[in-house]
């Protein structure tokens, strides 16, 4: 029984999506699907969360499963992050799709199956399950971006995302094929075991190609070009999902592959391994993401660049882990969880602030909306405070842990931490600018005034996220403990 617990989230997501297709075929009321998919993903996340917090051991999971999917605490932790991100996005979609007349049941099926792919990706311990999970997730996301198929912004963003995404997947795949050529194995541990006698040329090329492929998926500069277009073109609940669950899953497997497969002396050395490459990517990503976010007039594009910047902070944590070890990895895990809830708050209240014909997407749309509807603007402020790293929110602690891990690592890592703090200060500027527009600017004469929509689903998602953002910021104890246990077992 116990061994089933560890694959139960996958089974629930798979069966839930089949059930949803049946309900979609026979039910008239599509918003039932929102609650159904949200419950499916929520339950999947809860199971992993309870297994994680109770400290259950995967005593005898069958070898057939463990060869491809990890059942360790880190896997469970990522399950929780991904499934909660998916469940909250489903709630947001429940309000958004009905308000804007896009109510089609496919969205929820795509969302659930994409979450299934993301969970497989986050858990994968073999190049094969990595590739299959990655493609399941990506194909679903491409379709979600193109969901508003009559809009040229949506379709062009999706075509760009699809072409570059498939290109990056092919590069990642070629990298893993070269690792197979070098070591004769495709499992992460098998590759690591054979690394000693492997041809270093092949390993180095493979490593670089794999990093480039992942750099694309987590939208690190210079592989970020698709991000603003896809984020802007997608319907807002899909954007929220991309920025939390998809990104977390890509980071999950990235961390695993770096420390399990490329955790040997040579690949981790400062002279010839991945730390300097990732440090460069992190620095570029933080600087470019934050600076480019300043000039944006569209709030969704601004949040897209902000999500690029956050990828940079997370990369700092990953690079720091090559010296500090599990402490830095646990900071990354905590960061992903905090980032999930903060981002859902930001995108969720952007959804809440608009209604049919009066959608709030640009800074100008938000003029004065905070004074007219303070309760609807509140979650946005909480979300941006957390993204900014302001105490007592979860985002503050997350940033604090990541940067203090970087300082502990010493050497040039301290420079990265300082750069991170400086660029965070730029971040404060563009996040606060939204608040200024909401409370201190009057709408221009003749301008459409944004009116908040009424939706229990969206309000529910915002309430849950607010609770978590404040709760994790004030009492991070249990979650932090689970994260550090997961990290230390992951690093072995």
């Amino acid at each position, binding site marked *: 029984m116990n061994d089933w617990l560890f694959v139960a989230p996958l089974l629930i997501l798979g069966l839930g999506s089949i059930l949803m297709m049946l309900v979609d075929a026979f039910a008239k009321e599509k918003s039932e699907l929102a609650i159904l998919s949200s419950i499916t993903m929520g339950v999947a996340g809860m199971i992993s969360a309870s297994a994680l917090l109770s400290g259950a051991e995967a005593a005898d999971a069958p070898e057939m499963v463990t060869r491809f999917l990890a059942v360790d605490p880190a896997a469970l932790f990522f399950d929780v992050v991904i499934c909660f991100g998916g469940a909250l996005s489903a709630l947001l979609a429940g309000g958004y799709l009905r308000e804007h007349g896009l109510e089609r049941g496919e969205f929820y099926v795509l969302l659930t199956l994409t979450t299934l792919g993301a969970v497989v990706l986050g858990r994968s311990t073999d*190049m*094969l399950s990595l*590739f*299959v999970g990655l*493609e399941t997730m990506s*194909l679903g996301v*491409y*379709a979600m971006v*193109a969901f508003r*198929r*009559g809009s*040229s*912004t949506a*379709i*062009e*963003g*999706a*075509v*760009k995302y*699809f*072409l570059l995404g*498939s*290109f990056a997947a*092919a*590069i990642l*795949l*070629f990298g893993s*094929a*070269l690792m*197979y*050529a070098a070591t*004769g*194995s*495709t499992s992460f541990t098998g590759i690591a075991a054979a690394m000693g006698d492997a041809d270093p040329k092949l390993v180095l090329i493979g490593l670089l190609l794999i990093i480039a492929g992942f750099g694309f998926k987590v939208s690190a500069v210079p592989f970020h*070009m698709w991000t*603003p*277009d896809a984020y*802007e*073109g997608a319907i807002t609940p899909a954007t929220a999902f991309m920025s939390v669950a998809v990104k977390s899953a890509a980071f999950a497997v990235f961390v695993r592959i770096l420390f399990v497969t490329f955790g040997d002396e040579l690949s981790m050395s400062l002279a010839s391994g991945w730390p300097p490459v990732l440090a460069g990517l992190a620095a570029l990503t933080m600087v470019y993401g934050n600076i480019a976010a300043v000039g944006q007039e569209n709030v969704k594009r601004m949040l897209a660049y902000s999500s690029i910047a956050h990828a940079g902070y997370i990369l700092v944590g990953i690079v720091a882990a090559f010296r500090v070890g599990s402490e830095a990895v646990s900071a990354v895990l905590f960061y992903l969880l905090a980032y999930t809830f903060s981002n859902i708050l930001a995108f969720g209240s952007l959804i809440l602030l608009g209604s049919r014909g009066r959608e709030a997407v640009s800074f100008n749309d938000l003029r004065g909306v905070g004074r007219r509807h303070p309760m609807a603007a509140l979650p946005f402020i909480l979300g941006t405070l957390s993204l900014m790293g302001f105490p007592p929110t979860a985002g503050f602690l997350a940033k604090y842990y990541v940067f203090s891990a970087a300082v502990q690592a010493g050497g040039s890592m301290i420079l990265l931490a300082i750069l991170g703090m400086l660029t965070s200060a730029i971040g404060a500027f563009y996040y606060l600018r939204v608040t200024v527009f909401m409370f201190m600017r009057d709408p221009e004469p003749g301008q459409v005034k944004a009116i908040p929509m009424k939706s229990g689903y969206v309000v529910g998602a915002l309430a849950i996220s607010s609770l978590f953002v404040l709760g994790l910021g004030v009492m991070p104890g249990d979650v932090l403990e689970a994260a550090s246990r997961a990290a230390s077992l992951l690093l072995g």
Partner: protein
Amino acid sequence: MEIGLGAYLGLAMVLFGIGASGFLMRRNALIQLMSIEVMLNAVNIVFVAVNRFHPADHVGQIFSFFVIAIAAAEAAVGLALVIALFRIKKTVESDNADTLRH
């Protein structure tokens, strides 16, 4: 003349490079999709060739099966996107620098 693993790997690399160059140079979404297919096929050559030199199991060949299945799924979604693009723009050019800022 003896043909070894190196010949297969070199050939795969060249074909992968041709596919990648096509992807970068062309602006026709259909041809870019086909370039990606060429790249995925080059990856398959590596898997199958290496498997021949590690014949204890069929890991490489199995991997190729999965790549073929997923390439088919990718083609389905990609072609659906091309059709949607064609409905709106009446062209399949993927260069969208005009309508989307960077």
